[in-house]
């Protein structure tokens, strides 16, 4: 990375983050905003440090429920996506169901899940899964459904079976779509886990924030939000890195050489 690129990719985001916190602090001081409405960053960081142990332990819970839900969504989404993209008739038939399912707000599903599985981590994992598999299915199915017919002809002319064509052309070709959807799915899984924790749970960042809110400990609520934001960025960055690693050919022209 040369100096110009370093300035753009590292210094620029850092400068904007610092500027955001400074502006936030200044607004709070200048208008003497009460702590219970909007705590200044200094108060938030102080709360973060003071309650670091409960915040860390609850973050770990949220993190693993998110990741487990995301993992299930990845496997399920990939398989269903291949199934849906396998044939145009399946694609056309199952798509409306998927869209309908995706339109149901997941926060409305959480009480049902709690009814079935009780208060705990299971509803969080399932909510993370339910909210995040949709983009994976749609992307994989679209990647498969839009394979160029000429590409298929090359293999069909050799006597390749449908399975061969999927393995050699369809699936590799839809990998960029798949990894692209993972970036969206991971953030959604995170949202799902936290939503479920907020509705009914004994542990997790969502639950911590709910308790803090009930006790008017607003700086802790904001500390929780901050942790969520940072975790979200980290998870997104990891998925983006994996995407680059596995589908370098699709990023040609940007950083191909």
């Amino acid at each position, binding site marked *: 990375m040369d100096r110009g690129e370093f300035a753009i990719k590292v210094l620029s985001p850092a400068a904007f983050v610092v500027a955001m916190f400074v502006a936030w602090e200044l607004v709070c001081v200048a208008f003497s905003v009460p702590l219970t409405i909007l705590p200044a960053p200094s108060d938030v960081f102080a709360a973060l440090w003071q309650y670091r142990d409960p915040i860390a332990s609850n973050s770990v819970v949220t993190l693993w429920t998110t990741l487990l839900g995301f993992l299930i969504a990845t496997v399920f989404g990939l398989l269903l996506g291949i199934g849906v993209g396998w044939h145009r008739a399946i694609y056309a038939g199952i798509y409306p169901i998927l869209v309908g399912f995706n339109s149901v707000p997941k926060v409305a599903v959480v009480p049902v899940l709690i009814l079935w599985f009780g208060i705990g981590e299971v509803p969080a994992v399932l909510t993370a899964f339910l909210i995040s598999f949709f983009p994976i299915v749609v992307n994989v199915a679209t990647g498969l459904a839009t394979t*160029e017919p*000429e*590409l298929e*002809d*090359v*293999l*069909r*002319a*050799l*006597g*390749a079976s449908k399975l*061969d064509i999927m393995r*050699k*052309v369809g699936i*590799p*070709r839809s*990998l960029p779509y798949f990894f692209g959807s993972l970036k969206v799915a991971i953030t959604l899984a995170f949202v799902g886990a936290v939503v479920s924790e907020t509705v009914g749970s004994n542990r997790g960042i969502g639950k911590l924030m709910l308790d803090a809110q009930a006790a008017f400990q607003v700086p802790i609520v904001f500390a929780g939000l901050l942790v969520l934001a940072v975790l979200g960025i980290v998870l997104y960055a990891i998925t983006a890195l994996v995407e680059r690693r596995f*589908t370098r*050919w*699709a990023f*040609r*022209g940007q950083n*191909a050489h």
Partner: protein
Amino acid sequence: MAYGRGTAAVKAVEEVSLDIAKGEFIAVVGPSGCGKSSLMKLISGLHPPAAGILTVEGKPVSGPLKSVGMAFQNSNLLPWRTAVENVLLPLEIVEPYRSRMSAERPQYRDKALRLLESVGLAGFTDKHPWELSGGMQQRASICRALVHEPDILMLDEPFGALDAFTREELWCTLRDIQAERKVTVMLVTHDLREAVFLADTVYVMSNRPGRILKRCEVGLARPRDLEVTYTQPFQDIVHELRSLIGGRH
């Protein structure tokens, strides 16, 4: 052969009878949309005929022929594979190579490398398609069509998207490949000079539904040099073919 169904069906090819000898190089020329590509898809078994009989090497064609190698106007190389990996693709599909692939991968790789070298891609075997020029991609595509040693090579306007100089270079590459391997070649093209330079026999097709208007044997001696394209006999053949195809002037 027809596309669509019932009264809306479009007859693409009608009453075509081709008799191609083993090792012969034939070219099919005709106006745009006359069914040249359909004819090729028919012979390769990609599309079943609506009526009539199609035999290759005495056997009726019921499905895709494994003894055929195909290349199209688009090189259709897989962008996630390097040139040599692209050339190896047919060996991963076609028997008997397919079942030996895991055991003999190094030998197959050598074979693919030699093939790429023979068309002048020695330094580019590990490059991805987007790192190759259009001409190079098309060379790799032809290698892919040849690697499983097919008896018949079918080329559907393989040089149509290239500039004139690259195209002439690739004519010579194709000429040498065919002379060396004695493979039967069916070239679909709308470039009459290309057809006459490369082929033993040129078939002219009419407008839709495509029929064979004329079978023209190119009497020019082999091996042919590019210089031959500037001689009078060559020009005469091209001129005659041009007048058959018609169109507005």
